[in-house]
């Protein structure tokens, strides 16, 4: 049924439909709407779930690790500083092979204190062993959250579903909300591969010697590879039921494109408009939208960028001392591919600044007019900063 929903509401509806049994969260803008709705659902019985209030995000993830270890489906949502505080336990959740699903609403890290969108918070967690999806709109949010449970539980790894602050979390759009029966057909009840059992008591996470630890990590690496292979199968199942498919990478008009934008999140929507405009003027622009960031879909990226003459990666994030993080990943994916195009890195929209069609066109022309990238990263739209009083 079509409903007009915020991105936050779309997450909450997916969590309800997924039959999550334990929700825990600590409030932080801009994810607050998500857990507000879920706490209401738990309180009113609309969800048959326990809502655990905690004193910090660190405790929140610890609580979910405990709950998921006991064999139930769990959920949390956080943003920015909250995710940073969870960091230690993000490693624990994946190392313990717990398919926890989290919605992460990208928020810039302080200082300066900023509640607006910036991907650095989630990208800084890329090595924690969590699968990461970046969403473009509210429909993708609800669909990805449902897929996330299926993927997480298939490979026994946790998943982050990432939304842009405000541009997605607080924007209303028409969303097709599936019925419970449809969701139940797609997502079977959670069956843990191993769980705590009072009849047969044990504890997880004891000391592991060098002789074993490396193999445990190799299992995780293999599970990430499996996730990459399984995601398209899950998408097939999803598409068969709901008629929608996204792809780990969506290649938009890349076949004949000379310049291809690499985008993620809501910037993709703006890029689609720019693409239409520029194509109308004879410019051959394509877009490679990265939805799945971990595991990184190297083959699909190479395929999408194969025919491009130049690649322009637009990063709403930055790794200080290096470059935009998506640009790093793209370069890493291409460096061993033969005859790949040069990669231009652009930094835009940091800390919630709007990335307008004009910004993207500027990136297009800069890329077109330079044979090779001048620098690793070009910051777009920087203002003159006065240092006077």
């Amino acid at each position, binding site marked *: 049924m079509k409903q007009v929903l915020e991105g936050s509401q779309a997450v909450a509806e997916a969590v309800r439909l997924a039959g999550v049994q334990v929700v825990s969260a600590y409030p932080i803008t801009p994810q607050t709407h998500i857990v507000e709705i879920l706490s209401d659902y738990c309180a009113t019985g609309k969800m048959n779930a326990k809502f655990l209030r905690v004193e910090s995000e660190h405790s929140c993830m610890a609580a979910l690790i405990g709950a998921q270890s006991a064999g139930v489906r769990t959920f949390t949502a956080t943003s920015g500083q909250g995710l940073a505080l969870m960091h230690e336990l993000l490693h624990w959740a994946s190392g313990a*092979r717990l398919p926890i699903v989290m919605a992460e609403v990208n928020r810039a890290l302080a200082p300066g204190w900023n509640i607006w969108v910036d991907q650095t918070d989630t990208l800084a967690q890329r090595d924690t062993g969590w699968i990461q999806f970046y969403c473009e709109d509210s429909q993708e949010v609800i669909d990805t959250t449902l897929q996330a449970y*299926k*993927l997480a*539980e*298939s*490979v*026994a790894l946790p998943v982050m579903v990432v939304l842009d602050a405000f541009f997605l979390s607080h924007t209303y759009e028409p969303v097709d909300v599936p019925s419970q029966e449809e969701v139940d*057909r*797609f*997502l*079977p009840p959670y069956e843990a*591969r*191993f769980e705590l059992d009072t009849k047969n*008591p*044990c*504890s*997880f*996470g*004891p000391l*592991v010697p060098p002789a*074993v630890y490396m*193999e*445990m990590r190799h*299992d995780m690496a*293999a*599970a990430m*590879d*499996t*996730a990459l*292979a*399984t995601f398209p*199968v*899950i998408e*097939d*199942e999803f598409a*068969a039921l709901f008629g929608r498919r996204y792809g780990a990478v969506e290649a938009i008009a890349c076949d004949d494109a000379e310049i291809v934008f690499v985008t993620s999140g809501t910037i993709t929507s703006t890029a689609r408009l720019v693409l239409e405009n520029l194509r109308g003027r004879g410019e051959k622009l394509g877009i490679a939208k990265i939805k799945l960031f971990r595991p990184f879909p190297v083959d699909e990226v190479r395929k999408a960028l194969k025919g491009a003459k130049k690649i322009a990666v637009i990063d709403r994030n930055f790794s200080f001392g290096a470059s935009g993080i998506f640009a790093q990943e793209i370069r890493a994916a291409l460096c061993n591919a033969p005859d790949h195009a040069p990669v231009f890195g652009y930094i835009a929209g940091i800390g919630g600044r709007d990335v307008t069609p004009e910004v993207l066109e500027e990136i297009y022309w800069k890329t077109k007019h330079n044979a090779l990238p001048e620098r690793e990263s070009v910051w777009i739209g920087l203002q003159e900063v006065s240092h006077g009083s």
Partner: protein
Amino acid sequence: MAEKAQARAESESPIHIMPRSTLSTEANKTGSWRYLRPRYEEKTAPCSAACPAGEDIGKIEMLTAQGLFKEAWETILRENPLPGICGRVCFHPCEGACNRGEFDDPIAIHSLERFLADTAERYDLKPLLERLPGRPEKVAIAGAGPAGLAAAWFLTQLGYACDVFEASPEAGGILRWGIPLYRLPLAALQREIAQVEAQGVRIHTGRPVTPDFLNDLETSYHAVYLACGHGRTTALRVSGEESDGVGDGLKFLEKVRNGETPDVKGVSAVIGGGNTAVDVARSIVRLGGEALILYRRRRQDMPAFGDEVQMALDEGVKLQELVAPERIGKDGSRTLVTLRHMRIAGEEGGRGRIEPDGDRTSRIVVDRLFKATGAEAAEGWHNPPASKEALALSHCVLSLRNGRPALAWGGDLANGIKSVAHAIASGKQAAIALDTLFREGPDSILPRLESCTVGNGPSLSMEIHMGGERRLRNRHVVAYGEINTDYFRYAPRMTQPRLVRQERARSFAEIDLRVSGNIAMREAERCFNCGLCNQCDNCHLFCPDMSVIHDQSAQGRHIDYDYCKGCGLCVVECPRNAMTLEEEIR
């Protein structure tokens, strides 16, 4: 199809190793990380240290709050045989020391003490107290006032046979003859004297102790405790004080307590600023006269209880400050008093120091005058010797004469402060000292008294002397800052119900009325129970290591040091400082 993808993914991402342990995590004895060690250690409440009788007030209020009135009453009796009397007439220094006073208002300790005595009376309760096995020594006591009664009570508990010899036809001393009925009704006094007698104390009335009789006593008793009190009013040392218009305040009170109604028509002047002066003045008002208190210092310097002074003024008593009688004469049939005016010239001992205000004098004519400036021993030989052989303790003087029975002076004869509570303290100190003398010899007396001290002294505890649980407490007196006041709510102090002023001035009926059990329990609940565990269980609730384990011990719980990491949460969250955190000694 749905199951297929999942099955495939699971087979393609096998988890070869998921380490788990079936050992209990109890194998990891995290107590070894500890460098601070919490433990249960009860401490001393400031009220109990301030009480001359060393009553265990924090525990008394805890039991009262729990509705365990008999146990609370017995807890008083272990340290003070006269709660119904002290609940009425004690000047309650405990309330001045109460930590709750810094929070809102002190606990109404004296009202609760009286409530417990009233409850015991109402249900005719008989105390169940520990008594040591009988001893061969016998003790004679001169005077059945509060000091003599207390000494007899405690010595009986300690196993000694006691005989009390009282000069008057009835026991009670100052309580019987010197305190008006509106403050201490006869029934309240008689009940507690009877309770002392019920313990086996023999009181022989109409038997004044003379020097000859004292010699007789020394032949048949192993010790004599002299507590004949200060029964004679101190002379004013002004000319004319022997004239017939001048009366003795204590004698006047005695007459009234004897049922007589002396003529007090017209205006009576009362010289003095202590409780006796106020009692005389208020009795005069009740008998239909007018009373004028003449005091050489100011109202705030009066040794009488402030509350009593206020009530006296409310009842119509007049007060003239900063005047001292210089000469007493006659003006026809009336009495002429020449007053020297005084002025304040600084402070001494917390009250005003006075000096004559130049040559200023004035004269007043009254119908009679009462002396109530203080009292002294009725006979000079009652006073303790100043010789070096006598052992001067805080509340009594002990003479240990080789080969002869021990002689002890107590009560007003030996106390700096002449109060009922100090008299009881004296009786207790004498009992402990004599018991120690008989059991262990003279050298043990001082160490024994030191070990029985409550807080920083000089109050003593009979329970400690008799080996009760109170001896396990730390003598540290809990300060207000050591209470976790987050756990207490502001609550107003109970209001003592009283007769209204018009009713008071017409009769000798008791002014302070009884309070109900629920008011008493609510008041007792206000008590911080400083330093005492009231089983609130916060330590258990807050322990993050589940290392506070409930058990059947008196404490009700213990700390499992195998796992206690010494975080100190239990100690911080103990509302009443009944726990201690110390450095771990390894």
